[in-house]
């Protein structure tokens, strides 16, 4: 990523402590910025059709342009060799523009949803992993040059025993505190499972017109009530998951059928799937190398990301995925079946 000579240029380090740097990073998680990001995932997930985008995000290289004014106003463009798929978020909601399909979809922006391209930019990865990290979990790394800027290094070793992540390395811009590079490494692996970094970066607030979107003449436009399969399950599945699974507490955003448990680098999502959604995924799981067929679920670990699907052939089941150990996943599936509450017919 980037010419060798530029990467080899020595970076100016600072004697700031790990705890101070963590505070700086946490305090600048919504600092405005813009730039060009390259992300590289190595996780080949067993995904059925309705999860295809997630598989691409974590299993391939992604080029992004981002303009971030605030958490309420941003635009992330995924650059493709044959077009673009862009997300524009503003007061209207989140619009997805797809050049090749010539369409724009506006949706509300639910807290419960599948991962999307905007989650891959380094500051968002840092937000996910470091927002509630403790000073005792972090140590300093040498500074590095990222996007031609001095970036101070910080390593997070999550303390939770349920996590499957060994460490997360981030390098934050020495001037703005914005994270410019993030590297996630799973337990038992010396290789990065996921890397994301700016190749061009500016800490200046981008102009407001970058986060406005008008559907081009001739393009299809529609409003989507449902963003993705997680949002659909959350809105319509007639169940409520328990408040705690595998020792992890349900997050405040999980007030309906989908549960997001844990925090930071130790996090899992539990989605109730109907039979027609679960079965293709179950088939994919069976074909995935390294799959474990346990009585309560089929389970596979793809790097630090675990995926388990409860239930049996033809039936629906709980899909549980997250950065937790296999035992934690199985406990989570068991706890979900024991603790879920049926709330009537589909809403």
């Amino acid at each position, binding site marked *: 990523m980037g010419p060798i000579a530029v990467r080899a240029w020595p970076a100016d380090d600072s004697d700031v402590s790990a705890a101070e740097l963590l505070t700086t990073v946490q305090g600048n998680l919504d600092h405005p910025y813009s730039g060009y990001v390259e992300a590289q995932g190595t996780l080949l997930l067993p995904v059925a059709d309705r999860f295809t985008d997630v598989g691409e995000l974590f299993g391939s290289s992604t080029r992004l342009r981002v303009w971030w004014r605030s958490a309420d106003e941003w635009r992330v463009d995924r650059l493709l060799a044959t077009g673009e798929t862009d997300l524009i978020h503003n007061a209207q909601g989140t619009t997805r523009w797809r050049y090749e399909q010539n369409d724009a979809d506006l949706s509300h922006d639910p807290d419960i949803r599948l991962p999307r391209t905007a989650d891959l930019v380094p500051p968002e990865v840092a937000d996910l992993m470091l927002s509630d990290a403790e000073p005792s979990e972090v140590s300093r790394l040498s500074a590095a040059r990222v996007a031609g800027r001095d970036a101070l290094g910080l390593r997070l070793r999550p303390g939770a025993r349920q996590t499957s992540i060994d460490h997360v390395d981030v390098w934050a811009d020495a001037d703005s505190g914005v994270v410019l590079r993030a590297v996630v490494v799973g337990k038992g692996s010396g290789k990065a499972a996921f890397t994301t970094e700016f190749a061009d970066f500016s800490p200046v607030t981008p102009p407001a017109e970058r986060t406005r979107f008008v559907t081009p003449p*001739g393009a299809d436009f529609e409003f989507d009530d449902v963003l993705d399969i997680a949002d659909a399950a959350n809105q319509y599945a007639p169940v409520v998951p328990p408040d705690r699974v595998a020792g992890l507490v349900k997050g405040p955003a999980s007030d309906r059928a989908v549960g997001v448990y844990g925090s930071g680098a130790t996090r899992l999502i539990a989605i109730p799937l109907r039979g027609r959604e679960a079965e293709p995924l179950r088939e994919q799981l069976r074909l995935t190398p390294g799959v474990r067929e346990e009585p309560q679920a089929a389970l596979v670990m793809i790097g630090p990301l675990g995926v388990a699907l409860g239930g049996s052939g033809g039936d629906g089941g709980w899909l549980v995925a997250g950065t937790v150990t296999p035992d934690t996943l199985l406990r989570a599936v068991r706890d979900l079946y024991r603790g879920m509450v049926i709330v009537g017919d589909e809403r």
Partner: protein
Amino acid sequence: MRALTVELHQLVRSRRTWVTILLIDLLPTIVAVLLAVTDIGPRPGTGPAFLSAVLTDGTLFPLAALAIVLPLFLPIAVAVQAGDAIAGEAQQGTLRYLLVRPVGRTRLLVAKLVSVMAFVLLTLAVVAVTAYVVGVLLLGTSDAGQTTTVSGTSLTQGQMIGRTFLALAFALLCMLGVASIALFLSTVVDSPLGAALGTMAVLVASTLLLTLDAADVVSDYLPTRYWLAFIDLFRDPIHWRDVIRGTLLQAGYVVVFLGAGWANFMTRDVTQ
């Protein structure tokens, strides 16, 4: 100057030149006809850039045509044309007479290079004009009278034409890189086929390596790495990063291979 005039004369009077251009021009024309008849565009992410967009705006077809011919057809033609430049004269036994005339070796090399680039320019012009006419006639123009950028914003016709010329200039530069490699090989071997095949081997190897994650460390320096970066000119704002890198990379190939070709040709013992 005289050597250049002779080369350009030969280029435009050669039947091979026009047959080659016609064949290159034929492929995008066939694609346009098929699109117009079936109204079926490529699935997202599978076809050449802009090919899905031309179904609603035929004025974009010159760009789709560029994306169709640039990866394979055009570089093959350039490799054959430039590979033939010196080696062809040597094989026919005319190189010695050319140099006796007298024509300076540097002038001859420059004349050959300019002739190859004139061929590329001619080809791009024919492809672009044909594609525009075919695109507008068969696929129609946008109802809104404006062109949509890849990022979903609108471009005026003037902006669109300006960016299209930039894209054509970028393609021309990429082909100059190919021509430099072929011209160098043409000064090394006496067989035009050998020079053309050698150039194509370099391009195929480059294209193959670009698909390998293990070759990431060298990918930014491979000759075909930025060829299709011209699509970045149609994003909003223009994504200059790869266009600039592609320009610098091609300039590097031109300097290195033309320099090597020139040094080799200047010191070569021409006996045939």
